[in-house]
């Protein structure tokens, strides 16, 4: 490719044709201020903060969207450009609420950072303020349009990455507002609760619906036996909330921190993940037999809890589950009937654990620490509640909320020693750890399914062809002489691609893993906001988070879910065998089409 010569602030440089001014400046270590720009989303050029002076142009040009040309002379920091950028931020602030001190993003807000770094030191104008109602109708996402600066990042992530396009820009001028169609309440929209809008929002226009007050109250209640379960991906990301580099695993300190906060027992959602794999692989083998892929013959069909079609779709990601119900309800029979690891863990806590400890299940308060805002919705799905409509999971905290609670308590996370989970619901195999990254559920399922099918131990436990944090992967693996076609996708726009291929029948698939968020749970909508200069969809950050999970897996003695001795014990003492009647009653679920219907 041709190279283009230009100068940035009098520094000569040469970059490939097609490079933007912003990227060119980064090659010499100059980070042009920006606001609406996110590397993995489309270029909007909406905020104008990245404007630069270019010789021969009367107007300032946006560095994010302007490509370099031969001989271009760019100034990024002339007094005039600094003043213009400052004016732009002042104008954005003019109709922004003046409530930084009480705002959840205080100290972690891109608008605030820009106001500081561009030297805005007083509020000169009083613009017309926005007065929109806060929409907290959703179980997961709170929309506060007063804080919105119309950068459209949320609209882009909702459409370009998730293919949901729930968010759009409504009305015009001073009344412009970002929200669902007709500005209906979020709970009545096609929102799938994934929380990616929160991850990309530079301010606090989107936040998760906090459960911290309820959890503080439960912890302070002496009658309550408060237990925690932490999702596989939390250990890979929580350190970033305390300033650690991405990919630093912090399992032990997280356990200690939860005990310091006052939890009576700290369990691992990984145990639930192992249980999920045992049930899901049983279900998968049943479907293979039913369809003649494996010998064994047809099972009874037609029972809502035992659909038998192939390919089977994984069902751990509640954002994906919602998406399927709103956008592809005709494909419900493909969904694995297995509940997610969180929901399996919670119901085992309320039944098996309650019986074992002699604690009334009503007094057990289960807090799930999740990377995910959609888990706040999942716990309240009527299908997953008890006969009185009470959830088995009592509260879901995102990684961010837990980080905040630890800080708010005054716990010095980095000073903590490392403790172990409580047992028996705190022990897991390596297969469970990798649930937190895209491809992990597939790999874990293959390890167990392959052994059950062949009846022989696997020589190679690592299924490298389903690893890597890319959004769309297809592979074939040979099990007992049968070619099993698999696909692993994350980001729901990628889900659309594979679902359309399944519908068209152009290729026969057997098992498909689908995760709503980019990279899987490690890129979930509840993960810590990335540090300065990084972005949430950044592949390097996701790779480091994933690598730390694969490392934990590789270092574990037991790496196959069905070999977890505590899982074996659970079946012996309580669940009988995988796919038993009681397992179906407690560990499986159903799905139904949801309104409004999404547009594919």
């Amino acid at each position, binding site marked *: 490719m041709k190279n283009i010569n230009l100068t940035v602030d009098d520094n000569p440089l040469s970059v490939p044709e097609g490079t933007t001014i912003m990227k060119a400046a980064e090659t010499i270590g100059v980070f042009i201020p920006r606001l609406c720009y996110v590397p993995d989303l489309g270029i909007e050029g909406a905020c104008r903060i990245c404007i630069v002076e270019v010789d021969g142009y009367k107007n300032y040009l946006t560095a994010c969207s302007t490509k370099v040309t031969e001989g271009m002379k760019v100034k990024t920091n002339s007094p005039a450009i600094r003043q213009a950028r400052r004016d732009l931020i002042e104008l954005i602030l003019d109709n922004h609420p003046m409530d930084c001190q009480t705002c959840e993003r205080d100290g972690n807000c891109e608008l605030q950072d820009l106001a500081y770094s561009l030297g805005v030191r007083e509020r000169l104008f009083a613009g017309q303020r926005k*007065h*929109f*109602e806060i*929409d907290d109708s959703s179980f997961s996402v709170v929309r506060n*349009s007063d804080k919105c600066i119309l950068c459209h990042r949320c609209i882009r992530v909702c*459409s370009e990455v998730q293919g949901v*396009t*729930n*968010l*759009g*820009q*409504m*009305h*015009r001028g*001073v*009344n412009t*507002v970002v*929200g*669902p*169609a*007709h*500005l*209906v309440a979020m709970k009545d929209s*096609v929102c799938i609760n994934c929380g990616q809008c929160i991850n990309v929002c530079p301010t606090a226009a989107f936040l998760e619906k906090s459960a911290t007050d309820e959890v503080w109250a439960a912890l302070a209640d002496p009658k309550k036996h408060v237990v925690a379960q932490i999702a596989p991906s939390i250990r890979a990301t929580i350190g970033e909330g305390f300033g650690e580099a991405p990919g630093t695993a912090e399992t032990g300190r997280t356990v200690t921190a939860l005990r310091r906060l006052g939890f009576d027992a700290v369990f691992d959602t990984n145990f639930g993940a192992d249980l999920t794999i045992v049930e899901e692989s049983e279900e998968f083998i049943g479907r293979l037999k039913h369809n003649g892929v494996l010998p064994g013959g047809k099972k009874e069909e037609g029972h809502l809890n035992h659909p038998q079609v192939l390919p089977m779709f994984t069902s751990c990601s509640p954002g994906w589950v919602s998406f399927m119900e709103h956008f592809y309800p005709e494909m419900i029979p493909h969904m694995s009937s297995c509940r997610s690891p969180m929901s399996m863990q919670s119901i085992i806590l309320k039944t098996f654990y309650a019986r074992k400890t002699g604690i009334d299940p009503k007094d057990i308060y289960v807090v799930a620490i999740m990377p995910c805002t959609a888990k706040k919705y999942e716990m309240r799905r009527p299908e997953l509640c008890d006969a009185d409509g009470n959830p088995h999971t009592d509260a879901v905290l995102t990684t961010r909320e837990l980080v905040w609670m630890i800080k708010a308590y005054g716990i010095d996370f980095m000073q903590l020693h490392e403790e172990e989970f409580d047992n028996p619901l705190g022990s897991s195999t390596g297969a469970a750890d990798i649930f937190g990254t895209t491809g992990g559920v597939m790999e874990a399922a293959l390890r167990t399914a392959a052994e059950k099918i062949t009846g022989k131990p696997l020589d190679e436990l690592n299924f490298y062809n389903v690893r890597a944090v890319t959004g769309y992967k297809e592979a074939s693996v040979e099990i007992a002489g049968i070619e099993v076609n698999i696909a692993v996708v994350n980001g729901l726009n990628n889900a659309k691609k594979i679902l359309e291929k399944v519908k068209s029948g152009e290729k026969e698939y057997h098992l498909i893993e689908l995760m709503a968020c980019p990279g899987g749970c490690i890129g979930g909508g509840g993960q810590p906001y990335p540090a300065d200069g990084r972005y949430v969809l950044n592949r390097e950050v996701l790779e480091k988070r994933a690598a730390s999970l694969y490392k934990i897996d590789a270092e574990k003695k037991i790496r196959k879910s069905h070999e977890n001795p505590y899982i074996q014990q659970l079946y012996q003492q309580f669940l009988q065998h995988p796919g038993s009647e009681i397992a179906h009653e407690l560990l499986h679920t159903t799905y139904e089409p949801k309104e*409004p*219907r999404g*547009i*594919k």
Partner: protein
Amino acid sequence: MGKNENSTCSHCDMQEVAPLPSEIIEFIEDCLKGERPESQLIAVLHKVQLHYGYLPRPILDDVAQRLQVPTSVVSGVASFYHFFRLTPKGKYTISVCMGTACFVKGADKILEAIESQLGIEIGETTGDGFFTLEQSRCLGVCALAPVMTINGKVYSRVTPTQIPEILNKLREESIAE
């Protein structure tokens, strides 16, 4: 608009709306045969407004499904353009001229008088469905300033004190019909 932005409109929720007429359905189907059918969205919305007098919410949802354009995009376009109405028009549309001549002759006082009598603002329709209030720019009859039109009929040299009489008379006539 403004303060009511986040609340859903009672008209849209309550209104029983007739389904899309076959000629609009056929037009959408023709669009789908061509390239980039989504680019025909505004053309479709024009036809819908011509048929219903406004853009009913269930019809926007239907258009989104038929054209396979996300509902948030359809709703965004419909609410962006001044031309499109999201609420039905009243039996009488009052349009107060806010052009320069009318304005200096006190058009703002006329507007105030109407707003206070009907309890609606510009762009809104009374709950009983009788009156819709709009404003216009110069109608070209500055000699008659200030003017307003009601369903196209021009009222000239209007004073705020005449407003109750004009509006009550229309309402009485309408009820008598």
